[in-house]
C-alpha cells in the first residue's frame, strides 16, 4: 500500500487514490455500483421502457451516458450521478453563498452552481423584522442588508422557468455570516440530512453544512443553533463578535478536519467531523499538522476500521 508518511509531495488525486485503495480492502463482497463513462451505452435490456434522467441522452433508441459517474435507477428513471460537478439545487436545500452583485430588486448570489442564484428583495427579512411591502426606499437601502462580498446562509425557495435558482432568507436562522471560517469541499460529500445547522457542543463549535459544499464554522453559541446574524435585532453593526483564542483553536481544528475529509473525499457528516477532531486531539496533533501525511493516514485507518465494523 502507498504511504503518505514519506517526504514526497501529494496532490488531491493521489490522496483520493490512497484512501480508495485502503477502503477497497474492506468492502470485500459489497455490491458494486455500476459505473459508466462519457459515451457508454447504459443497459436497459431487462426494462420495459425507461425514462431519461440527468447525465443521459437518447441516441437511436439507446440510452447513452453524457457524464462519468454511478448509474442510478429509480423505477423507470435511469440517471447518472457524477461525483465531481457543480452543485445542482434542490428545493429546500440549505446553502452558504456569497453575494456577487446587486441589480434592481435582487441580489445575485454565487452558490457554486451552474448559474448565479437570485435573492429577491421580497425574500429577505427587513432590518427590524417588520412585515410590509418593499418600497423604493428599501430598494435604495439594499446594501444595509447584504453587501457585495457578504457571505450568507440561505435556502432554495423556488426555480425560475430557465432553471435558475431563487433563494430566500426569511427566517432568523438565515442571513449574513460573520465571525467564523469558511471551508469549501466537493458538494457531493455533503448529503442532505435532517439538520444542516449543527451544534457540535463537544467541540465547542457550530457548523452550517451548506448543500453546495460550502461549510461555515463558528464558535458554539449556547441556545441558538448556529444562529446567523439575528436580523430581528439591531441593524447590522458590522462588528465581528469577539472570539477567544481557545474558541479560535476549536474553529480552526474543525475547519482543518473538514479540509482533511474533503481532501480524502470522505463524506462529511456530524459523526465524521466529530471523530476526526477527536482523533486529532487524542493523537495530540497540532492544528497545522492536521493536513499533513501522518494525520491523513490516521483518518484513513479510522475510516477503514469503521467500514470494517459494518
Amino acid at each position, binding site marked *: 500500500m502507498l504511504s503518505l508518511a514519506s517526504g514526497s509531495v501529494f496532490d488531491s488525486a493521489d490522496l483520493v487514490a490512497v484512501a480508495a485503495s485502503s477502503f477497497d480492502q474492506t468492502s470485500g463482497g459489497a455490491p458494486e455500483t455500476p*459505473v459508466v463513462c462519457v*459515451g457508454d451505452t447504459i443497459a436497459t435490456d431487462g426494462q420495459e421502457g425507461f425514462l431519461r434522467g440527468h447525465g443521459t441522452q437518447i441516441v437511436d433508441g439507446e440510452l447513452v451516458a*453524457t457524464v462519468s459517474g454511478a448509474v442510478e435507477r429509480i423505477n423507470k428513471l435511469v440517471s447518472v450521478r457524477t461525483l465531481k*460537478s457543480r452543485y445542482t439545487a434542490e428545493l429546500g436545500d440549505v446553502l452558504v453563498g456569497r453575494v*456577487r452583485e446587486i441589480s434592481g430588486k435582487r441580489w445575485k448570489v454565487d452558490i457554486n452552481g451552474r*448559474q448565479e442564484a437570485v435573492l429577491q428583495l421580497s425574500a429577505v427579512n427587513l432590518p427590524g423584522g417588520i412585515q410590509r411591502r418593499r418600497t423604493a426606499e428599501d430598494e435604495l437601502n439594499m446594501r444595509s442588508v447584504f453587501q457585495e462580498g457578504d457571505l450568507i446562509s440561505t435556502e432554495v425557495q423556488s426555480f425560475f422557468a430557465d432553471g435558475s435558482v431563487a433563494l430566500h432568507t426569511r427566517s432568523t436562522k438565515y442571513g449574513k455570516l460573520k465571525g467564523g471560517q469558511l471551508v469549501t469541499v466537493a458538494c457531493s460529500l455533503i448529503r442532505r440530512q435532517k439538520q444542516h445547522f449543527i451544534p457540535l457542543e463537544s467541540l465547542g463549535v457550530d457548523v452550517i453544512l451548506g448543500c453546495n459544499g460550502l461549510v461555515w464554522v463558528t464558535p458554539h453559541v449556547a441556545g441558538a443553533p448556529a444562529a446567523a446574524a439575528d436580523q430581528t435585532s439591531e441593524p447590522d453593526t458590522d462588528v465581528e463578535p469577539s472570539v477567544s483564542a481557545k474558541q479560535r483553536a476549536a474553529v480552526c481544528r474543525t475547519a482543518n478536519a473538514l479540509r482533511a475529509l474533503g481532501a480524502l473525499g470522505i463524506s462529511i457528516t456530524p459523526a465524521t467531523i466529530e471523530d476526526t477532531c477527536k482523533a486529532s486531539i487524542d493523537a495530540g496533533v497540532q492544528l497545522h499538522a492536521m493536513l499533513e501525511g501522518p494525520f491523513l493516514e490516521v483518518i484513513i485507518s479510522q475510516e477503514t476500521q469503521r467500514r470494517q465494523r459494518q
Partner: protein
Amino acid sequence: MEFVSPEGLRLDGRRPKELRKLRIKLGSLDGTDGSAFVQLGNTKVLAAVFGPRGAPTGARSSAISCVIAVSAISVQGDRRSKERLGRQATEFSRALTNAMEQLVPADILKNACIDVHVQVLQADGGLFAACANAALLALANAGVPLRDICAACHTGLLESTALVDLSAQESMQQAPQAAILYECRTQSIAIMQTDNKMSTTALEELLELATEGCIALVTAMRQALISSTVQQLSTSAPHASAAQRRD
C-alpha cells in the same frame, strides 16, 4: 534521413503504428472544477476547467472558451520558434472551442460559461492532439455533460509509410501530416488539421490511421475516467452506522 529502418522501426524505436506511452492523471489541481494532466511520450500538458458558472454581466459571444498557452519552459530553441508555436496554439484553440460548443449540450450553457485552460509544459510532437485530449478529459472530470467521447491523434506520411503519433523530429519534416479530433460514438471527425501538400490517397491513408489511433487513445482515456470515478465512489461511500448514530 531514414525514418523507418529496414527492420520496420522508427527513430525512437517504435513501430509505424505504435503510439507513444500515454499517462493520464485526473483531478490533481485544487480550486478548479476539473483538471487533467496528459503525458504523451515527452509531451506534457495540463488542462483545467472552470465552470459551468454564472456568466459575467455583459454576455460574451461564446459561452465556452478554450485557451491553449504555450509556456516559456516548454520548447527549446529561440524566441521565434516559441512565438510560432504560440500562434499555432491560438489557431488551434479556436478550432477546439468550436468543437466543444458542439459537444456540450446547449442547456448547460444557458446563462453560464465554461473556461478551459490548457498549459503546455513540454512540447514534443503531437502537441495539439495532447492538448485536445487533456481539455476533453478535464471537461469530463468536471462533470460537464458531453454528447460523445472524443480523442485526438496526429499522423504523418514519411517516406511513403504512414506513421502514427509523430515525435518532434518526425513532425519537423516537410511531409504530409494530418491531425484529427474524432468522435467515437458517431464515428465522425470534429476537427481536421493538415500540413504540407498531399494526395487524396495519402489523406485517406492518414485519416484511417489517425482514426485507429484515436480509438486506441479513447480506450485509455475511458479507463482513466472510470478508475477515477470508482475511486471517488469508494471514498465517499455512505456509511449507514454513522448516520444512525446521529439520529
